[in-house]
């Protein structure tokens, strides 16, 4: 029982629940975090001796709450303590705490904790950073290195974000169904942003930052455990699993992007993929289409194809049609054009691209796709022009290198 690594994993796993419950109790994020920190320190001392508690989250809530209350009493007797009815149960034993954890209250606790990280006045990257710090418990150094910025800069960013969070009004009452749904969708969006931050760094060199992707998947699974019948959370988790399963094949040895068609499918993580496929099926059973589900369904079509030639492009075209109707966007039309080119040919796809020239006039992928379609039609000069434009809009070296390779093929 002296395996410190095991204790670390147990505390990491307990953290969202424990901090969320302590936040509801103390209604102060700093106090909740400190209380959890204190519980962790005690866990490191006592768990190796006494063995692990059966429910580490309940243990941390119990110990953290008591130590924070003691600290408050010691520090200042005049400090305003939580209302009497809230502390009346402070003599609870651990098992009573475990019983209460079973109640549905704690799904809303965790959701609230994630939701307060999504302050609309904070830029997306700060929302993600603060969620990684508070919910996932990553160190500032770990977050800084994931975002490729200095530790000092990240520390400042997180402090600023936390200040915004503590000033905002947070509802501690149990949310109604409409409010819960809204929170869920906000939090889902944040988790997907976190995943994408890891999946395709904008402007950075490294193209897949695995820890961010894995953390996003962990949060997705956590949310789905709490809300097991939310089809869009199934869809989100499936989408991340299916995309991340392809990560081992996504970059070559020179850190260049390997396109889906050229990826070594033997490198795909079949375990993650299988889990993602089941979740897509589960979500679809409910018959309520949503954007995460549909995107996951697209990834599932690719996952099911043993080789690129086996891809069911007609099905992809159909899914994009539903997605387009649900959430019209030029980027979705652009992606649909790729499917259309496979089913009906490059000329038909180029037709679809026509209305996109203006809205996507400074979008790298638009010119990449346009170039590829023109090249396929033998319109070399126009293709060259599109590829050059794409290179000028590339955000990473890998993106630019990929287009240059196409240009070279055109010139040879």
């Amino acid at each position, binding site marked *: 029982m002296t395996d410190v*690594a*095991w204790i670390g*994993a*147990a505390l*990491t*796993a*307990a953290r969202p629940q424990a901090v969320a419950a302590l936040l509801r109790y103390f209604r102060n994020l700093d106090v909740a975090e400190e209380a959890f920190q204190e519980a962790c320190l005690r866990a490191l001392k006592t768990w190796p001796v006494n063995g692990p508690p059966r429910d*580490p989250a309940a243990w941390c809530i119990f110990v953290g709450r008591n130590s924070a209350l003691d600290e408050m009493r010691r520090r200042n007797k005049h400090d305003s303590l939580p209302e009497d009815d809230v502390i009346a149960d402070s003599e609870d034993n651990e098992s009573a705490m475990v019983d209460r954890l079973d109640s549905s209250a704690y799904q809303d606790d965790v959701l609230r904790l994630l939701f307060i990280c999504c302050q609309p006045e904070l830029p997306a990257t700060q929302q993600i950073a603060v969620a990684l710090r508070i919910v996932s418990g990553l160190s500032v150094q770990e977050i800084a290195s994931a975002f490729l910025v200095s530790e000092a800069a990240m520390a400042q960013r997180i402090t600023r974000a936390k200040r915004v969070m503590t000033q905002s009004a947070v509802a501690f009452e149990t949310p109604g169904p409409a409010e819960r749904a809204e929170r869920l969708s906000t939090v889902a969006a944040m988790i997907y942003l976190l995943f994408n931050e890891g999946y395709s760094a904008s402007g950075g060199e490294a193209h897949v930052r695995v820890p961010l992707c894995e953390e996003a998947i*962990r949060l997705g*699974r*956590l949310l*789905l*455990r709490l809300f*097991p*019948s939310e089809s869009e959370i*199934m869809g989100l*988790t499936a989408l991340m699993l299916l995309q991340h399963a392809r990560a081992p094949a996504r970059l070559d040895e020179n850190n260049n992007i390997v396109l889906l068609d050229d990826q070594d499918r033997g490198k795909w993580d079949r*375990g993650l993929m*299988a*889990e993602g496929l*089941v*979740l897509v*099926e*589960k979500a679809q*059973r409910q018959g309520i289409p949503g954007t995460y589900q549909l995107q996951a369904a697209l990834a599932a079509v690719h996952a099911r194809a043993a080789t690129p030639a086996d891809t069911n492009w007609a099905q992809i075209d159909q899914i994009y049609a539903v997605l387009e109707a649900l959430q019209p966007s030029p980027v979705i039309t652009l992606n649909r054009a790729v499917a259309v080119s496979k089913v009906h040919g490059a000329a038909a796809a180029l037709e679809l691209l026509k209305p996109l020239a203006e809205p996507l006039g400074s979008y790298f992928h638009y010119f990449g796709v346009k170039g590829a379609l023109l090249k396929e039609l033998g319109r070399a000069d126009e293709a060259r022009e599109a590829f050059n434009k794409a290179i000028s809009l590339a955000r990473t070296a890998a993106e630019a290198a990929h287009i240059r390779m196409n240009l070279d093929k055109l010139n040879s």
Partner: protein
Amino acid sequence: MFYCILCYNLESELQAWSREKEATVMARSEAVAHALASQGRLGPVGRLMPTTTAMTVRASREPVVLDGPFAETKEQLLGFYLVDCPSLEDAIEVARSLVGDTGALEVRPLARFYPGIGLQ
């Protein structure tokens, strides 16, 4: 006598394991399994996918299909089936045909499977 050994743990904790930790744990259980297999004493071994992939078919006038794992603690685990199904829907159909007047069946895909030897 055949014995079934069922594994329980906190899923959230396993999902927070590092790769090294995962590899260490797997290596240890594989060593035990290997020794048993070489003595002809090991039947099928499986690792289940996370509970988030689970569905539950509960007995009712018409069986009810629910998202999520079997969650009640009032009933006891009494047995299991291992079936090969082309889809989740198909597996749910099998469970529907198996469910009795009371109780519930959880349908959960396998992440890993080792068939073992045909125990006699």
